[in-house]
């Protein structure tokens, strides 16, 4: 067993883990933070996307021991829980309003990948969004409304007044 200390959504956590434990299982099974999903488990679908030290990564392809000492942010840390719906992150609100999800399975990863994308590029074009999210698969929406949601959230995060997005 190896001791890891990982700050998850602002809270420091510390556990003895097997070195083979994957970060996504640390989040879900050790910490009980099941907001992050496992989709493919083969590094392809992006459902397990979280941020590790500020970069989007697929947590099914990282060992918990590799994340020792790092800061991990998941979809669960985005909203301000006290505020209710008003405390939602702009991406959460935009996915809701633009119908950027159907079954919702890809959504935690899609939102975390989109957050990274907007942080790198505050005003992404449709093509940049589609390219930037190529590591995230959605089997329901056909992506159209995901692109709209990301554009709308990006506008809100830039502080632009609400724009009607055409895709």
């Amino acid at each position, binding site marked *: 067993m190896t001791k890891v200390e990982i700050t998850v959504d602002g809270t420091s956590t510390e556990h003895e883990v097997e070195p083979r434990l994957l970060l996504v299982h640390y989040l879900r099974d050790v910490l009980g933070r099941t907001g992050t999903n496992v989709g493919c488990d083969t590094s392809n679908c992006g459902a397990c996307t979280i941020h590790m030290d500020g970069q989007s990564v697929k947590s099914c392809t*990282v*060992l918990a*021991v590799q994340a020792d000492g790092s800061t991990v942010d998941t979809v669960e840390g985005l909203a301000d829980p006290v505020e209710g719906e008003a405390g939602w992150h702009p991406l959460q609100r935009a996915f809701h309003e633009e119908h950027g999800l159907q079954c919702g399975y890809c959504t935690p990863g899609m939102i975390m990948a989109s957050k990274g994308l907007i942080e790198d590029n505050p005003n992404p074009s449709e093509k940049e969004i589609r390219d930037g999210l190529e590591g995230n698969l959605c089997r329901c929406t056909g992506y159209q409304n995901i692109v709209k949601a990301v554009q709308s959230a990006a506008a809100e995060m830039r502080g632009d007044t609400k724009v009607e997005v055409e895709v």
Partner: protein
Amino acid sequence: MIPATFEYVRPSSIDEAVAALAEHGDEAKLLAGGHSLLPLMKLRLAAPEVVIDLGRVDGLRGVSEVGDGRLAIGAMTPHYKVMADPLIREHCGVLADVTAKVGDAQVRHRGTIGGALAHGDSAGDLPAVLLALGGSVIAQGPGGTREIEAADFFVDYLTTALSDDELVTEVRVPKLVGDWGWRYEKFSRVAQAWAIVGALGMVKRSNGHIEEARVGLTNMGTRPVRCTATEDAIRGQSPDAIEDAAAHASDGTSPSSDLNATAEFRQHLARVLTKRALTAAVG
């Protein structure tokens, strides 16, 4: 899917890493970004008894000039840092541009240049660019360091010239001097996928002619391929020579047939993509 159990070792210096490799021999695997190794371990196609994590080894990240007209890139430099590095963009932009086509954003945040080369996968995009550039890797083992030219490094499918007790510490690429243009044509059917075939065309332009050319191919055999026949056929020529020269791009290749493409189709792709890449490279 869960990897088999292993002993975890986390050295903090290159010397410690070399010592750990020497101690555990072929039971050990080095772990860099883990984006080739961990998927294999989860499928239990790899089950090393010892995993040596290079993630905390000092001095394996970053880019510097080595003084002899080359750049040195630390083996643990992740793909996204290679893409954004000012020295690489200024002196060897082709490496940044090809790296931008590797996998997806999340993969590029974890995968490293050293891991991508040491894995020796001829379907990977970086071996062909290192070969076309005439780059090299610096390997360190118990006996010291040695430089291995790209042309000697890739030996067979998933097999490199590294011995069990060596690690890659650095990747070296030349600074491109003169008016170079390039294009990497990566053919795949779906987003984020590996190349069914990839063709890198680089040309050095001078007075409307091609002074020099480099062509490297991805996934056209068990090793990356450099197409010297095509390079020779356009050296000193006008861009009009590209079409006939590209027809030789598949000469001597023996790509595999799989669900995505037959060997014959891959050879066809190699010719077409080489023509497109060189044409775009001329600008």
